[in-house]
């Protein structure tokens, strides 16, 4: 269940960053996967290391997520079964030591979802919840041997 065509699964776009108070105006359209607002077009680099140590460095659009970046570039080891809804834990990555502080800690909901991942470590994150930004230019993450 992987491959470039998986991008078609982006069903509830960005439906996951915060639990939206449904129907409330204020809740509106929370934390969408940054298709608006951010400097569209700005590009950074993300490096994906696989479990065997092979590195793939790709361009990433500011405002998109690390998971989307992986799918667009057919990075093996990111399944993203739920299409970015923070609902499946099949886009689990390990953030490289020197990036953990900048990337930050998972939210409560992401922590809950990490319970469905295997070999969870202190630097574990779900890549659908990491937003590409200029501060994260050069980010390095490692994909686990198996997403489960």
């Amino acid at each position, binding site marked *: 269940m992987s491959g470039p065509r998986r991008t078609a699964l982006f069903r509830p776009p960005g*439906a*996951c960053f915060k639990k*939206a108070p449904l129907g409330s105006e204020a809740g509106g359209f929370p934390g969408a996967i940054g298709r608006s607002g951010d400097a569209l077009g700005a590009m950074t680099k993300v490096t994906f290391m696989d479990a065997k140590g092979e590195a793939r460095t790709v361009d990433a659009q500011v405002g998109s997520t690390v998971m989307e970046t992986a799918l667009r570039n057919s990075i093996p080891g990111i399944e993203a079964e*739920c299409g970015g809804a923070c609902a499946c834990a099949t886009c689990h990555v390990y953030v490289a030591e020197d990036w953990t502080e900048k990337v930050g800690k998972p939210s409560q909901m992401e922590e809950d979802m990490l319970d*469905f991942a295997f070999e969870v470590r202190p630097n574990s994150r779900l890549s659908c919840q990491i937003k590409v930004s200029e501060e994260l230019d050069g980010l390095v993450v490692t994909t686990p041997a198996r997403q489960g």
Partner: protein
Amino acid sequence: MNDVISTDVAIVGAGPVGLFSVFELGLLDMKCHLIDILSKPGGQCAELYPEKPIYDIPGYPIISGQDLVDNLMKQIHPFGPTFHLGEMVEQVESLGTADRPLFRVGTDAGTTVESKVLIVAAGGGSFQPKKPPIPGLEAYENASVFYSVRKMEHFRGRRVVIVGGGDSALDWALNLHPIASRITLIHRRDAFRAAPHSVNAMRALVADGQMDFVLGQVTAVKGEARQLTALVLRKESGETIDLPCDDMLPFFGLTMKLGPIADWGLNLHENLIPTDTEKFETSTPGIFAVGDINTYPGKLKLILCGFHEAALAAQRAHHYVFPDKKLVFQYTTSSTNLQRKLGVS
């Protein structure tokens, strides 16, 4: 041997598109039986993101997965579909001809449905338990390692380790506690997604010395002849210990696998079922594929596309179910005939 259920249309998958198929088929007088491996209707909407908002359902600027499912259930209610939940379709046999198709559908629970039309609305395949990537674990499955509890008696007097922090893990820790000789719950952190009352009940048993809770992750298993003797556990401190046990129940949620669909004799392309775009029929006349499971030039995996596919598939299905009846296209807004079927006229 159960009796064979005879119906017009069997639908594999009770996700949004399977449910809406009931509506479109119902307007054309076809009766449906739906089969789904989950214990509730709604598919991914209900299982993966019930509380999360969907923004691209026409007419709903925002709707949660569960609300969409609830609305669809209300919408198809007039047509009285029959649900076979918690069952996986294993075999599909073709008994008819290309002009007069007839299918016999068998589930893992022993249900047999015979239908003139089969609609595969199976989404990403069937939801199946996630298996921890522990080397050699398969050898113990269904003897000493279980992903669901079918017979509680199996665990009587045994040392049972339950892994996970959700409702399944906590519910089974509590339910098996009176039966097993010892329950050990293993979770990677001291926080649980499960219902607070279950967590409190578990904590009370642990405080009372009646149950063990260990913070850590299982990294390997030991045993012989399909029988576990111990788990290798990496504790939070990094220390590795052997935890003697007889059975392990890992609860890491569900993942989607294509499952037995691959064995039904349909053409497949990268685990998807190719269809035409006029009626969404597969390589087998009388078998249709709608929603995320199908593929055709320009396919988008959107719920709204699945709804469209269901409507067109129903038109063709009518031809197989009522070969001698002419189908006249009607609108629900103006047709008293359709309104009578919907119970509104």
